[in-house]
């Protein structure tokens, strides 16, 4: 029989898991903002620096040499060795490059295969919200159950021992955390993480720690979760090159984990990805070997702009906690009486400033907007003027 397929049939031919995932909340704003002119965007989740030239050059050289075949599944050995050195020098955690590190297609792939390697159907994963948009869908796709754990503004969006304990059930397998956090910019110090580690230990849980923004810490040095006592064996540490090295489009990340978990992840990786892009791996090698100065410069520049945007928000009456890391400010817009979506949509339509409504990062983000300050100082200044005008009308 010919004819069109009904919408029920269309739902039926897709997996239950994929149907259970809501469409991306960011997409709608992207579509709206893209059609408008004269938009200043504070909605971009990536650095405003191009990848440093030496890194691009190294990648071009690898193409010229013809280094374009697959690499080992886990990634180029010299790259894994450099990653191990880097993690040791910058974050003081030590991993064996050959059995405890793999190179992935962005930190995103690392997150996905970490969850797939450890989750059985029905296992519960505590997902800290507000948090990056892909955590919950990744768990759902793997057949796990998402247990959202809201961090609160009054705690500067940090985790508390009590809140974590309250979210744990006998079915809890793991917790996904991310500090410095996208979208809140929250960071956690060693002292603040220690009680969390105790809970993890007491309940025999695993931790997936997304530390992609680790280098972008402005007031304190980033303390890796796996550096806490007894936590190395319980932590799947995920990071990559996108943020600190300004290499988002290269799609290159890495995972450091205990060797049993890592080899399970490697199994999934080798059947689904084979290996991360070779030419990107050569770029990353250069970034680790000769990129320190660029990273430091970029971090200084983000820190200055962080200072600028927070103080400017306070001047125009936007209630904003000081984000200790990443490149996002997460001011509260509750005083306007609008929902975060209403606020973001009206701000875009009336003043052509694009921000991301907090609720797309989980319900804990309602009442806030995410403003990326990875934008030029001129753009930040203009955006703040426009937002001031907008707030005065509301």
């Amino acid at each position, binding site marked *: 029989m010919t004819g069109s397929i009904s919408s029920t049939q269309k739902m039926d031919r897709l997996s239950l898991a994929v149907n259970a995932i809501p469409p991306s909340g960011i997409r709608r704003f992207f579509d709206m903002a893209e059609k408008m002119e004269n938009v200043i965007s504070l909605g971009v989740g990536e650095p405003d620096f191009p990848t440093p030239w030496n890194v691009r050059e190294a990648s071009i050289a690898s193409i010229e040499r013809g280094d374009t075949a697959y690499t080992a599944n886990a990634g180029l050995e010299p790259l894994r060795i450099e990653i191990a050195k880097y993690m040791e020098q910058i974050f003081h955690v030590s991993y064996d490059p050959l059995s405890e590190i793999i190179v992935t297609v962005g930190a995103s792939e690392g997150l996905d295969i970490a969850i797939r390697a450890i989750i059985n159907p029905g296992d519960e994963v505590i997902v800290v919200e507000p948090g*990056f948009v892909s955590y919950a869908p990744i768990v759902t796709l793997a057949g796990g159950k998402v247990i959202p754990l809201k961090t609160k503004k009054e705690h500067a969006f940090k985790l508390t021992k009590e809140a974590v304990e309250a979210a744990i059930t006998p079915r809890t397998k793991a917790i996904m955390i991310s500090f410095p956090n996208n979208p809140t910019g929250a960071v956690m110090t060693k002292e603040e993480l220690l009680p969390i580690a105790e809970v993890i230990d007491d309940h025999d849980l695993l931790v997936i720690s997304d530390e992609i923004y680790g280098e972008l810490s402005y007031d304190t040095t980033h303390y890796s979760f796996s550096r806490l006592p007894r936590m190395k064996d319980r932590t799947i540490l995920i990071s990559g090159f996108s943020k600190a090295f300004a290499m988002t489009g290269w799609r290159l990340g890495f995972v450091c984990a205990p060797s049993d978990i890592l080899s399970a992840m490697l199994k999934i990786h080798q059947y689904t990805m084979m290996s991360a892009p070779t030419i990107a791996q050569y770029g990353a090698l250069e970034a680790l070997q000769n990129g320190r100065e660029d990273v430091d410069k970029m971090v*200084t520049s983000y820190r200055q702009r962080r200072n600028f945007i927070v103080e400017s928000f306070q001047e125009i009456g936007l209630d904003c906690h000081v984000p200790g890391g990443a490149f996002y400010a997460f001011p509260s817009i509750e005083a306007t009486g609008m929902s975060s979506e209403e606020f973001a949509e009206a701000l875009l339509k009336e003043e052509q400033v*694009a921000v*991301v409504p907090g609720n797309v990062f989980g319900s804990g983000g309602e009442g806030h907007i995410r403003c990326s300050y990875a934008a030029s100082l001129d753009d930040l200044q203009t955006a703040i003027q426009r937002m001031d005008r907008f707030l005065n009308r509301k």
Partner: protein
Amino acid sequence: MMNETKLEILRILEENGRLPIDTIAKLVQRDKEEVAKIIQSLEDEKMILGYRAVVDWEKDQENTGVTAMIDVKVTPKRGVGFEQVAKRIYRFKEVDALYLMSGAYDLSVVVHGETMTEVANFVSEKLSTLDDVVSTTTHFRLKTYKHDGVIFHDEDNEDKRMVVSP
């Protein structure tokens, strides 16, 4: 040893000398008065010597000016080394820049003139006639690609990121 705030302000101004003081104050988390004082002291100490625009004169159709970089060998003088001859050279208004160099020659002189003849005349009449100057080699600058860290015709400068992303 210079304090960190001072150094940070210098780097900010080196990048953009026109930033207003209150913007700089926000960037470095200090109050305006303190930043103004620091900048004043940097100017007083002559650590900051001036503020200028980076101009692409090639955009001015009527501009015929030329710039030459001249390698100069000199005989240093006992007691004063290169200082005396350097002073005699940099006092000419035609001289834009002067550096003491290591290597095959001693002084590098950057000379600006309205025409090539003007520069040639300066070299033959003023520069090479100085007692201490042994030889000169003149190179004319044909095109500026990058000057003081600024790329002049930067086509890669536009923001290529998607307007909203997670």
